[in-house]
């Protein structure tokens, strides 16, 4: 039996597709499909009701706008190759902090192992009494290039117990990452930036 809806809807969809072209074409691929992208969710799940939660989620659309706004050519190039930058910082409070810190330590260890099994390379790994740190990169195959970077931190210090997870997805140059770690940093000179968060 012929479905009379199909050709009409197909026609309608095709027309909408052409009209929606600039938007649809401009829309960048979903970052979750990028090999360097990791979900924040397991870390967000550790949050308690009284915790201080800082969540950063800069996706492709914002990165694209940001890239256009940045004046420094090197920073612009670096930003242009990024797909997503996201992070969560949990400042733990409550009666169950030690239990959740134990869970977080296990999560960091498990995530590190899982990522290594998936081809991520550990560039920093620290296990101390008061902290567990893991920094990993996903190689992009090309010399010095990576698809993503992940930072996992659990600070069990009694004064300020916190969990940090950050992920940068995109094609990054290891030299740029070294530049980050040398303290020269990336300068995103946007007017009024200093006023934010005050």
């Amino acid at each position, binding site marked *: 039996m*012929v479905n*009379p*809806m*199909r*050709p*009409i*809807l*197909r*026609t*309608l*969809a*095709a*027309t*909408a*597709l*052409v*009209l929606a*072209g*600039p*938007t*649809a*074409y*401009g829309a960048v*691929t979903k970052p979750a*499909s990028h090999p360097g992208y990791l979900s924040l969710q397991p870390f967000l799940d550790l949050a308690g009701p009284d915790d201080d939660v800082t969540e*950063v*989620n*800069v996706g492709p*659309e*914002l*990165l694209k*706008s*940001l890239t256009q*706004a*940045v004046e420094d050519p090197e920073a612009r190039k670096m*930003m242009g190759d990024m797909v997503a*930058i*996201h*992070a969560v910082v949990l400042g733990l409070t409550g009666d169950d902090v030690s239990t959740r810190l134990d869970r977080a330590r296990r999560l960091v260890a498990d995530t590190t192992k899982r990522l290594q099994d998936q081809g991520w390379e550990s*560039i*920093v790994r*620290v296990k101390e009494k008061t902290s567990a*740190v893991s*920094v990993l990169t996903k190689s992009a195959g090309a010399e010095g290039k990576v698809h993503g*970077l992940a*930072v996992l931190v659990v600070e069990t210090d009694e004064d300020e117990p916190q969990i940090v997870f*950050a992920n*940068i997805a995109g094609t990054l140059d290891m030299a740029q*990452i070294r530049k*980050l*770690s040398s*303290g020269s*940093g*990336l300068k*995103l000179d*946007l007017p*009024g*930036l200093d006023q*934010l*968060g005050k």
Partner: protein
Amino acid sequence: MSAPVSIACARARAGLQARLDADPAQRVDTAEIEAHLTACPECRAVARELQEVQDALRAAPLLHFPDQALEEVWDRTLRAPRVTRVRRSVAVWSGLAAAGILGALLLAVPHGTPVPQGPSEEEVRRAAAEVQFVFRLTDHEIRHQGTRALREVLDGEVAPALRAGERK
């Protein structure tokens, strides 16, 4: 409310759509359709309308869409639940009307017109601050490790060697 359509008209219109659709899974009896069109002015009008929409679409420039973007558009159009909730007869005709309007719009809108949708200046500034926050955090952890490694070398190797030298 549209007038009831005879079985012959319904068959002819389904055949017309299948023919325009070039769907190999559907049998199209061209002779039967043409015979019906000769005798039925309403179906001739439908055929003309369908052909106009098809011609307008064919005349449009071919754009390449990434597969994912295409999927998203399908999700927002064909696969959107609201389409399936509309009564079929209404959907067919309103779909045809909408296609006609959209087709006309397509011809009227100059290609390459920018779509002024995107993050506000404030959102971009906030994103810049957030990106810097993540970079500083990453920077801190990598540098912290460098300091730690240096301290381990100093404490574990250099200091014992110096103490051994002093004892000699």
